[in-house]
């Protein structure tokens, strides 16, 4: 599903993003990417979605060779991924419903498909009642739910989340994580970058730890503090 083969990303200013990453994430897995700030978590995720390309090595995602990809193929890679960010990134002039529908319009879904799928996605994240609300009328947790609905509505094989709870209080963070787990149980591969120790520890998932851009541990059913 996702495979890194000795992948290294060095930014144009010479800073190392990630270094010699070799890793395999199977279909249906739930994986945490953890490590201190600046350790390369975001870079790792950016390599998956082709926001950055590796300077060396190979990256395979959902059957695409991301390290060596035609520009015209990128949209199709992205359609096989759902992405969630710390800062939500919703369109402020569209309602929750419209934000989710927009993701379907972009991939040219029919209006019938849109009418069927959008309420389902909003129902899944528990936001059916706020469909008509604009982002600024929603709490942080609610906004992140809309983002999740948007990421899921096109049924991606992989969901990528970069610090999805970074702007949320602990209680809401747990709710969002539970939602991610639920999504994972429906068959979607989930990769979450975070540095929230308590959540990682409590969820007993696979944990890949980065430091200075390198993988220093990779543990099934691990925790943040686990040094293997």
């Amino acid at each position, binding site marked *: 599903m996702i495979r890194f083969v000795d992948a290294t990303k060095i930014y144009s200013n010479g800073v190392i993003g990630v270094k010699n990453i070799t890793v395999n994430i199977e279909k249906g897995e739930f994986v945490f990417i953890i490590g201190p700030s600046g350790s390369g978590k975001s870079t790792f995720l950016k390599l998956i979605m082709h926001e950055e390309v590796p300077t060396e090595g190979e990256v395979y995602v959902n059957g695409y060779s991301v390290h060596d990809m035609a520009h015209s193929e990128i949209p199709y890679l992205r359609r096989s991924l759902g992405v969630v960010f710390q800062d939500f*990134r919703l369109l402020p002039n569209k309602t929750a419903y419209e934000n989710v529908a927009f993701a379907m319009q972009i991939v040219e879904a029919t*209006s019938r498909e849109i009418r069927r799928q959008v309420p389902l996605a909003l129902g899944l994240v528990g936001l059916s009642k706020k469909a008509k609300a604009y982002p600024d009328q929603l709490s942080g947790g609610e906004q992140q739910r809309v983002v999740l609905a948007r990421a899921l509505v*096109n049924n991606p094989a992989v969901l990528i989340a970069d610090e999805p709870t970074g702007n949320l209080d602990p209680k809401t963070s747990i709710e969002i994580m539970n939602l991610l787990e639920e999504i994972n149980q429906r068959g979607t591969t989930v990769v979450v970058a975070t540095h929230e120790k308590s959540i990682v520890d409590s969820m007993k998932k696979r944990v890949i730890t980065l430091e200075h851009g390198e993988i220093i541990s990779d543990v099934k059913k691990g925790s943040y503090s686990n040094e293997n």
Partner: protein
Amino acid sequence: MKIRTMKLLIKEGAQNVIKNKLMSFASIMTVVATLFFLGIVLLLAVNISSNIEAMKRDLEITVFLNVNATNYQREEVVSFLESKKDAGIISEYRYESKEQMYQNIKESLNDDSLLEGFTVDNAAESFYIKLVDPNSSDEIITELSRFSGVNKDNGIGYGKDELDKLEGILKVFNYIIMAILAVLMIISVFLISNTIRLTVFARRRQIEIMKYVGALDSFIRWPFIVEGLLIGLIGAVLSFFITSQVYKWLQGFINGILVNLKMATLRIMEFGPVAFRIFMIYSIFGMVIGGIGSLLSVRKHLNV
């Protein structure tokens, strides 16, 4: 691309124009000014060439006979002109006797004292010849100069050379204007691309989200292109309206002056017959300017 997607993209583009009122207004005015200048230059060129053609068709070869030319010598010239008329080279000609010339001069001078010493006897007979094709003038003039009755020293006059010279100058003038126009177009393309760049900038978040969700480049690009095309088209329609009004006013004004100056062969053309062509040219140029402008401004935002 599917129809409903196209509708969506056109709607987005149109909304852009309306949302960014001030920027759209600035761009539209740029198009209006560029096209207005283009139109005035085109209309000027069309008028000049049509008037030159009319003047050429109106142009006469004047042939004076010697003061002491005989009837026989005159008849020689007449039969030559008749044969050329039959051959379809001369469209018409007119003869003026000594008496007529004397009268004409007398009338035009308006003051008999100036006529002193000038009598019917030292007036000359003359022919005024119109050609079917003004370009055959050289040949006719050479043949006419061989007749013994024709006055060899400045007896044959024709204005074509002057017109040709004028045409040559105007051609150079045309090139200069075309160069100015090209520069003007490039400037307006850049002005518009800057305007649309601002709207692209304002919507970079939306573009970013679209890319994360997997929008094709064309999907991202089209609303902006539609925006550019719309700006171009609106500018074209406005400019066409302004041009037609200004032209009609100028036409009446200049034609009035020409009539007063008794230069009625010169005439500013009607707008009606060229209106459709001008409108098409405006629309096409407007949309090309707008389209290229917007393409330039989105291009660099698509490379992620």
